[in-house]
Every structure is written in structure tokens, then in C-alpha cells.
């Protein structure tokens, strides 16, 4: 039998809705099988997941609290991705942002300037960390996927070193924590929950980035470099500048996420600043196809997953790693499904069999 693959001339619009929805359902099904394998009823587990996220005030606000950093890391991946670069280092940039902000929070005064300085240092630290792979890519064409990823380990060990060493708090009983921040170094919270002002800022940043990349000439230049490097060169756009600048913007946003997590949530520096939000940014960016507005939607989906994941862990003892599995499956199903938007497949064994030019 011969399988024939042909490029579609036109893709029915409905396909673009069916594929993501079907992919999510398929992933839920697949994860359900895994849950069954360890003796957990998947329907019960998913029920717990939803009732935690939507059934209580705490859970619902927590959904936003978890969505916010994912929006930011999603943007940190998306912006370089639009220029054709993979920033797999959002996790490390987040950790460096958390470190710099904590440094300010613990050692700087007077109080009134601390919070603004935490934001500034968080942004700068993330930027600085992202500038290394950005520079190496622009100057030496060093593979940014490997360099950004490897720097994550370095950043995480750096923060670990600090909370086990010089920045370890005085009253933390051997936990890898710094001391708690003073009140003036903490982002304001609302509704008596953990919903902090950083959540709102995250959404605003997404909108700002949307405007930057769709309404400005810079955004246009980024898109040209990403989609058609030759045309970019022809138009006099410096590819190197775009490479470095998109990495810097991405790093700054991830650095802000780190600042936000320590100042809004943990209220101190600790070894585990993030449960892997930087990596979650990758599927988010892919699902959103680099569009910041869709990043918010995709981040919400994965925020739900994190809230649900921790609910499933406390209720059934299911490892949170299941969240990673789900993320990977959704993307794999979607890109697998994408194939059908670009190509049509027909099966048959008669006629028109392509033999290739025997030479």
C-alpha cells in the first residue's frame, strides 16, 4: 500500500479549533490511563483538579497566582521564538531575577525605594543572564538551545549556594531559606488570599508585548528575521541586534517573574523558587504560536494544571511530574495534528506511485 502525502492548498478553518481541543482531550485520556496504572480513578482525580481550581475562593485566586508566572515565562520564550530563537533558559533567568530582587529586599534601604529597586534588579538580572547566550549566538552562532538550558543549572545552583550559605536566614531551622522579607519588600495582596498585584502586572505585560510585536516597527523587524532572514538582510535589519534584543527582553520578563515569585508569593528567597515555570513557558509559547494574547490563554490552561496537579498530589499522592507529561502530550498531539492542517493524506496502492528519478 502506498501512502500519499500532499500539501493542502487550503486548510478548513474549523481544523484550527478542532486540533487543540482534540489534543487536550487526547492528553487527558492518555494521562487518565497512566493514573489508572497507579490505581487512581482518573475521573475522581480530574474532579479534584477542577473543584480545587473553581470550587473555592482560594483555589480560584490560586489559579491566577500560578497563571501569572507562566504568562511571563511564556512571553520570555515567545519573543525570541518570533525571531527564530529558542530560549530554553527562562527558568534560569527567573532564578537570577529572584536572586537579585531578594538581594535588594534583604540588604537595601530606605524602605521606600526597595520595591522599585527589586523590580529593576530583577529585570536586569534576568536580562544579564539571557545576554550570555544571546551574545554567544549573535557573535559565534553558538547553539542557544544548549547554552540557555545549561545556564539554568548554573543559576539554580547559584541560588542554592546562597540559601545554604551567605543568604541563609537566621531563623529558618536548617531549611534552605533566606529570612522573610520586610513588609515594604512584599507585593500588595488582595481578597485575603495570595492574589498579589504582580498577577495584574503580568497580564498588562502580555498586552504591552502584544502591542510591541504587532504594532511597532521593532516587532515587524523581529518577525522578518524569524520568518525570512534573507529578506531581513535585504531590508537592512541587523540580525545580530534582533537576536540580542529579543533575548534581553525575554530575559527581563523572566527575571521579573522571579522577582514576583519571591516578593509576591514566597516572601523570601528559597532553593525552590519555581516548580519549572521556565520550562512550561515552552509549550505555552508553542500553543500560543508566539502570540502574547494567546499566551495568556495557554498559560491559564497550564496554571489550571499546576493548581490541579498539587491538588491531585495532596489528595491522591500523585507525583506533580504528571503535569510535565500532560504538557508534553498536548504539544505532541497538537504538532502531530498540525501535520493534517498542512497536508492531506490518502491511502491507496494503485497508480501514480512515485519512483524517484533513478540516476
Amino acid at each position, binding site marked *: 500500500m502506498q501512502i500519499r502525502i500532499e500539501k493542502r492548498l487550503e486548510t478548513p478553518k474549523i481544523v484550527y479549533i478542532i486540533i487543540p481541543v482534540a489534543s487536550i482531550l487526547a492528553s487527558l485520556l492518555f494521562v487518565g490511563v497512566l493514573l489508572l496504572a*497507579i490505581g487512581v480513578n482518573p475521573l475522581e482525580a480530574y474532579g479534584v483538579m477542577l473543584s480545587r481550581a473553581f470550587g473555592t475562593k482560594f483555589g480560584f485566586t490560586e489559579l491566577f497566582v500560578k497563571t501569572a508566572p507562566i504568562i511571563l515565562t511564556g512571553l520570555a520564550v515567545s519573543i525570541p521564538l518570533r525571531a527564530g530563537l529558542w530560549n530554553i533558559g527562562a527558568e534560569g533567568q527567573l532564578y537570577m531575577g529572584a536572586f537579585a530582587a531578594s538581594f535588594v529586599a534583604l540588604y537595601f534601604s530606605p524602605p521606600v525605594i526597595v520595591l522599585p529597586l527589586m523590580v529593576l534588579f530583577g529585570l536586569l538580572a534576568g536580562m544579564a543572564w539571557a545576554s550570555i547566550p544571546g551574545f554567544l549566538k549573535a557573535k*559565534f552562532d553558538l*547553539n542557544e538551545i544548549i547554552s540557555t538550558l545549561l545556564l539554568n543549572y*548554573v543559576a539554580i545552583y547559584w541560588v542554592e549556594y546562597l540559601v545554604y550559605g551567605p543568604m541563609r536566614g537566621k531563623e529558618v531551622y536548617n531549611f534552605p531559606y533566606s529570612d522573610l522579607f520586610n513588609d515594604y519588600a512584599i507585593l500588595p495582596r488582595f481578597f485575603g488570599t495570595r492574589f498579589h498585584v504582580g498577577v495584574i502586572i503580568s497580564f498588562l505585560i502580555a498586552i504591552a508585548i502584544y502591542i510591541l510585536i504587532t504594532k511597532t516597527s521593532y516587532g515587524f523587524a523581529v518577525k522578518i528575521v524569524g520568518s525570512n532572514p534573507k529578506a531581513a538582510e535585504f531590508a537592512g535589519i541587523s540580525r545580530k541586534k534582533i537576536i540580542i534584543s529579543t533575548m534581553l527582553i525575554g530575559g527581563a520578563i523572566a527575571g521579573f517573574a522571579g522577582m514576583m515569585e519571591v516578593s509576591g508569593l514566597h516572601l523570601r528567597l528559597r532553593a525552590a523558587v519555581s516548580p519549572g515555570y521556565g520550562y512550561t513557558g515552552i509549550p505555552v509559547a508553542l500553543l500560543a504560536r508566539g502570540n502574547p494574547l494567546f499566551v495568556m490563554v495557554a498559560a491559564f490552561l497550564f496554571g489550571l494544571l499546576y493548581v490541579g496537579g498539587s491538588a491531585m498530589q495532596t489528595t491522591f499522592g500523585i507525583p506533580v511530574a504528571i503535569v510535565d507529561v500532560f504538557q508534553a*502530550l498536548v504539544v505532541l498531539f497538537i*504538532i502531530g495534528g498540525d*501535520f493534517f492542517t498542512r497536508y492531506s493524506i490518502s491511502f491507496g496502492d494503485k497508480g501514480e506511485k512515485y519512483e*524517484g528519478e533513478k540516476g
Partner: protein
Amino acid sequence: MIEAEFLASLIAASMRAGTPLLFATLGEIVAERSGVLNLGLEGVMVSGAMTGFYVSLVTGNPWLGVLAGGIAGLLLALIHAFFTVTLKVDQAVTGLMLVLLGLGLTGFLGRDLVGQVATYIQPVNILFLSSLPYGNAIFNHDPVVYVGILLVPLLWFLMNKTRYGMELFAVGENPEAADTMGIPVDRVRFLAVLIGGFLAGIGGAHLSLAYAKVWTDGLTAGRGWICLALVIFSGWMPQRAIFGAYLFGGLDVLSFKLQAVGLGVSYHFMRMIPYIFTILVLLFSVIREREKFGAPSALGKPYIREQKF
């Protein structure tokens, strides 16, 4: 002669620690030679590590564990091959998702294995050689280490002297031309990715069953990424891969050994060394590469026949 003994034990430990890297790097060289980049190496290795540990734990036979590790790697590579070769999907995306999938699945399924003790691979003495002065450094390893060494000439032969090797180069350099010559591009690539996954899986199993001798979440700790750098470092040549792998194996143990000596440098700084060194080596390779070495021309590019006709 404390120094000589220290050196001998360092060499021995480098070989042991470098073997997982060697397997994964060799496997990835084969895959990349065919033009398929598997960024999911980390996920493939960790799957091999957990599966190998689990099977050895259950059966009591570490060799079944190694085989199972290879098969686990093969299965993950099968996903990669199906997506990138059959469906022509972006290789970077699939590879990255393979990392998440591998780390996620092993974290999920391996939760009960943490803290367990499996049957590990034991070293063998090669004849009387290990009784030579410092012979232990080289001649007292587990068989997987030696298989790894043998793999180097074997793969060199496969890639340079056989028909499949020739096809591998052809599809990696110029799939259009290979296709025209009647070489089944997709089949050659598919097989290459599977070979890569199998070897990386065995590397992972060696990690959990002979080197680390334990299962923890994310046991590979970035080794898959280091191997991706080692492939570039080795210029896609098996005979160079062994140096890179042992070098990084040495680096890995050196950080522990210096710790034990008590140099006063923080454990956390020591742990950073391999990652920073990888970036430096990569930098060295890409600067040098401009003169001598080149990646396979079609690396990372899906081959779609319809684009041509």
C-alpha cells in the same frame, strides 16, 4: 605516591562516569549524521535510567535492566522518529517535548523507586591485567564500559565502511540527491534515530545501574544536554566522542573528589563546573569548526519530497 593513586582512581572513575555520556553521544552522532537532531536526549537517557533500574529491581538481573533501558530509549526515539521523519514536524519542538515527556513519565512512574536498592552491574577483572600496578584504573570495570569502548571502532566502521554508513552520510548531507539516487531517505533516518535512542537508553541504564547506583527524580541532571554539546565537540566523529565523554566523566567525579579532599569550595560551585565547562567547550568547538569541521548539511531539516516536485 598519593598523587599517582589519586590519578589512577580518577581515571577509573572518569571512565565509569563517562560511559553513559559515551553511549548517548555515539547514538546521537548516528542520528545527527542522518540529519535528524534529537534534542530529547535528556528525556531518552532518563527513561533508560529509570526503566533499567526498575527492571533490575524486579528481576534481580541488571543485564535485563540494561536491555530494558535500551528499549525504553528506543521507544522514546520511536516517537521522535515518527514525528520528525514520518510527519516532518519541527525537530526542535519534538525533541524538547521528549525531554518533558521523559522527565515527567520517569518522575511519575518512578516515584516508588526512590530509595530502593536494585541489583547493580558488577565490575569484572580482565585476566590478570587489573593486578598490574594501577591496573585497576583501566582493567577493572563493568562490561558496559568495555562495550562502550568497542562501540567506537564499531560505529566508525559502520559509518565509514558500510553501505548503511554511506547512506547515512548521503541523507544527512543532501537528502534530495540521496533520494534521486534511490536511497530511502526516511527509512535511513528512522533507523538512525532508533539506534540513537537505543544507545542513549543503555547509557541511562548504565548511569543508574553502575555509576549512580540509585534512582532519583531527574537522575541524568543535564547529561543529555552535555552529550548534545559533545556531539558538536567531537565533530560528529565517534573516535573523538570518547575523549569528550571521558573528559566530562572526569569533570563529574573531580567535583566530588575535590569535595572529599576538602578544598573549601562550596559543593554548589563544584556542581556548576560541568555546565559552565560544556558551554566553554561548545564555544571552543564552534570557533574551531569554522576552519575544519562541519555539521551534516541537512541537520535539523525535515525532508519533504513534495517540496521539490
